[in-house]
C-alpha cells in the first residue's frame, strides 16, 4: 500500500471489501442450502418459495441411518408412547422403523460411510509412507534422468480415471478383486502416490542437508539419520500430505463407481444413487451429504496454510 492514500483510494478499498463479502455469501449459499436442508422438516425442503429460516430438526439423520416402511394404519398409541424420541419422529412421518426382533435395521449408509473410511485411511497410509521414502531418495541422492522420472511419476496422476479403469476392471475381474476394499485401495494408492512423492519432495528439499550430515559425522548410519533426524523434521509435511491424500481418496467417484457395486462401495457413488426415480426425499439425501462433507470442511481449515502447495504439487510454496 502506498503511504499516502487519497480519499478515492479509501472508497475503492471499502467497495472492494464489500464486494468480497457479497461474493463470499454467494459462494457459501449452495453449502448453506445443502446443510440447512439436512435439518429441515420434509415438506419445507421442497417448499415454494424456498424456506430459509425454520425450526431445525434431526429427523433426516434418523431416516438416513434406518430402514423404514410406510405404515398402512395409524400407530398403536401404546407402542408410540414406549418408543424412544427418534422413533417417534419416524412414526410422526407416517412410517415405522424396520426391526429384526428388537434390533433396529440400519440403512446402507453407515456401511458405505465405513467403506469410505477404510479405503481412504488405508490408501493414505500406504501412499504417504511410500511417497515419503521416495521423496527423500529424489531429494538427497543423484539419480540419472531425475527430471524424466519425476515427470513420469506426475504423469500417472494426470491419467483420466475412466481410461485407467477399463483395463483395471478387466484385470480385477480376472483375479477377483472387483468390488473389494483391496482393489479400490490399490487404485487409490496408485493415484495418490505420485502426488505424495511430489509434495513430500518439496518438504524434504526444505530440510537442510546439514542436519543429516552432522548426524552422519556423529556416527549415525544413513538410515538412522533418516528416521531420527529427517522424519521428525518432515512431520508437518507428512501430515499435510496425508490430509490431501485422504481428501482425494474420500472424494473419489469414477473408480468407485466402476469397480464397486455392493460390498466395497464407498459413499460418493452411493449418495447420488439414492435419488432414484420419482420425488426424492431431499432431506435424507442432504443429511447424508452433510455428514460426508463435514470431514472435508474440517480438514480444509486445518490445511489452510498448505492448500496452495497442495494444489500445485509442491511447486509453489509460501
Amino acid at each position, binding site marked *: 500500500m502506498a503511504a499516502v492514500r487519497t480519499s478515492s483510494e479509501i472508497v475503492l478499498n471499502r467497495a472492494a471489501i464489500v464486494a468480497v463479502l457479497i461474493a463470499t455469501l454467494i459462494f457459501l449459499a449452495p453449502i448453506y*442450502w445443502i446443510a440447512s436442508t439436512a435439518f429441515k422438516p420434509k415438506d419445507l425442503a421442497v417448499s415454494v418459495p424456498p424456506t430459509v429460516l425454520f425450526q431445525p430438526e434431526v429427523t433426516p439423520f434418523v431416516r438416513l441411518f434406518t430402514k423404514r416402511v410406510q405404515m398402512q394404519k395409524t400407530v398403536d398409541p401404546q407402542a408410540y408412547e414406549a418408543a424412544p424420541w427418534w422413533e417417534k419422529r419416524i412414526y410422526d412421518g407416517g412410517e415405522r422403523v424396520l426391526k429384526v426382533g428388537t434390533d433396529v435395521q440400519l440403512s446402507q449408509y453407515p456401511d458405505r460411510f465405513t467403506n469410505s473410511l477404510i479405503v481412504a485411511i488405508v490408501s493414505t497410509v500406504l501412499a504417504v509412507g511410500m511417497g515419503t521414502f521416495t521423496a527423500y531418495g529424489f531429494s538427497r541422492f543423484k539419480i540419472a534422468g531425475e527430471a524424466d522420472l519425476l515427470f513420469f511419476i506426475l504423469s500417472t496422476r*494426470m491419467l483420466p*480415471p475412466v481410461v485407467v479403469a477399463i483395463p483395471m476392471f478387466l484385470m480385477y475381474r480376472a483375479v477377483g478383486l472387483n468390488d473389494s476394499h483391496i482393489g479400490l485401495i490399490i487404485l487409490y494408492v496408485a493415484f495418490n502416490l505420485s502426488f505424495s512423492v511430489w509434495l513430500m519432495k518439496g518438504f524434504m528439499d526444505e530440510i537442510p542437508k546439514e542436519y543429516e550430515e552432522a548426524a*552422519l559425522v556423529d556416527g549415525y548410519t544413513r538410515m538412522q539419520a533418516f528416521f531420527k533426524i529427517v522424519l521428525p523434521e518432515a512431520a508437518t509435511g507428512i501430515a499435510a500430505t496425508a490430509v490431501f491424500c485422504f481428501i482425494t481418496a474420500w472424494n473419489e467417484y469414477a473408480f468407485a463407481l466402476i469397480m464397486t457395486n455392493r460390498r466395497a462401495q464407498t459413499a460418493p457413488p452411493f449418495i447420488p444413487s439414492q435419488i432414484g426415480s420419482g420425488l426424492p426425499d431431499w432431506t435424507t439425501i442432504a443429511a447424508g451429504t452433510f455428514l460426508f462433507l463435514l470431514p472435508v470442511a474440517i480438514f480444509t481449515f486445518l490445511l*489452510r496454510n498448505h492448500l496452495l502447495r497442495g494444489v500445485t504439487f509442491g511447486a509453489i510454496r509460501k
Partner: protein
Amino acid sequence: MASVALTHLDPASRAAARGWSDLTIRNLFIIPTLVFLIVFNIFPLIYSLGYSFTNFAANRSEPWQFVGLQNYRELLSDDHIWSNFIITAKYVIVSVAGQMFVGFGLALLLNRSFPMKGLITTLLLLPMMMSAAVVGLFWQLLYSPSWGPINYVFGLGDFAWLSNPDSALYAVAITDIWMWSPFVMLLSLAGLSAVPQHLYEAAAIDRASWWYTFTRITLPLVSPILLIALIFRTMEAFKTFDIAYTMTTQPTAELIAIRLYKQAFQQWDTGKSCALAYIVLIMVLAITNLYVKYLNKVKER
C-alpha cells in the same frame, strides 16, 4: 591404512561404510514406488493398447479377433464421437474462462488487508475441496425447476436447467465454475502477493492510472502463475466425468469421458473403448507435458 583412507572421505561415504550404502538406500526408497506405478498404471495401459486392436467385448465369452486399426478408423470417422469432442471443447472453454475470470477477480478483491481475511479466504476455498459427484448431486436440488432456490432468486419459474438440452451443459459449467474458481483465486493470490510493492509505489508517484498499473505491472508479473492455473484447469475440465455424470443425462451434455464410460461399461464395446481411451489419453498427456513444463519454470524463479 584403510582407516586413514576413511578419514579423508566425506561424511556420507563414512556413514556408508557403517550401514547400508547410499546406493542401496536410494534404490530401496525409489524402486518400489516406480515398480508400483508401472504395475498399476503403465501395465494396464499396455494391456488396453493391445485390446484397442481387437473387437473384444468384456460381457461376452466368445473369442475376440484382431481387427487392426479398424477401431481407430471407425472412431475418427464417427460423427457421434466428434460431437462429444465438440461438446467437451465448449464445456472446457466456458468453464475454464469462467473460472479464470471469477477466480482472478476474487483474488484482485482479496489482495488487500482487512479483518478476517484468512477466514474468508478459507471459506471461499471450501467448494474445491469437495467431492465433485456430491457437488453435482446437491446442485440438482439448487437447480430444481419448481422449488429450487436458483429459479426462485432469478424468477425463472419452471425453467428446467438440467433437462433442457440447450442449458444442461452450461448448468454443469456454472457448477464447475463455482467449484473451481477458488483454485484460480488461490494461485492468483500467490502471484499477486509476489509482485514487489515498490513497483506500485513508483506507479503511484508517477500518477499512473489504475488501468495502466494493472496492465503494465500486475498482469505481466502474475501471468506465469495464471498460465499454470489455465493449463491445469483445462486439463481437468477436459477429463471431467463426475460432476456432469451425476448432474444430467442430456445427450447435449455428454462429455468425452462420459461417452467413454458408456461405451466401456454400458455398451461393453471393450475393444473400441480402449481405442477411444487411447485417443483421449494422448490428448491429456500433451496438456500434461505443457503443464509440467510451465510448473518447472515457475518453480525455478
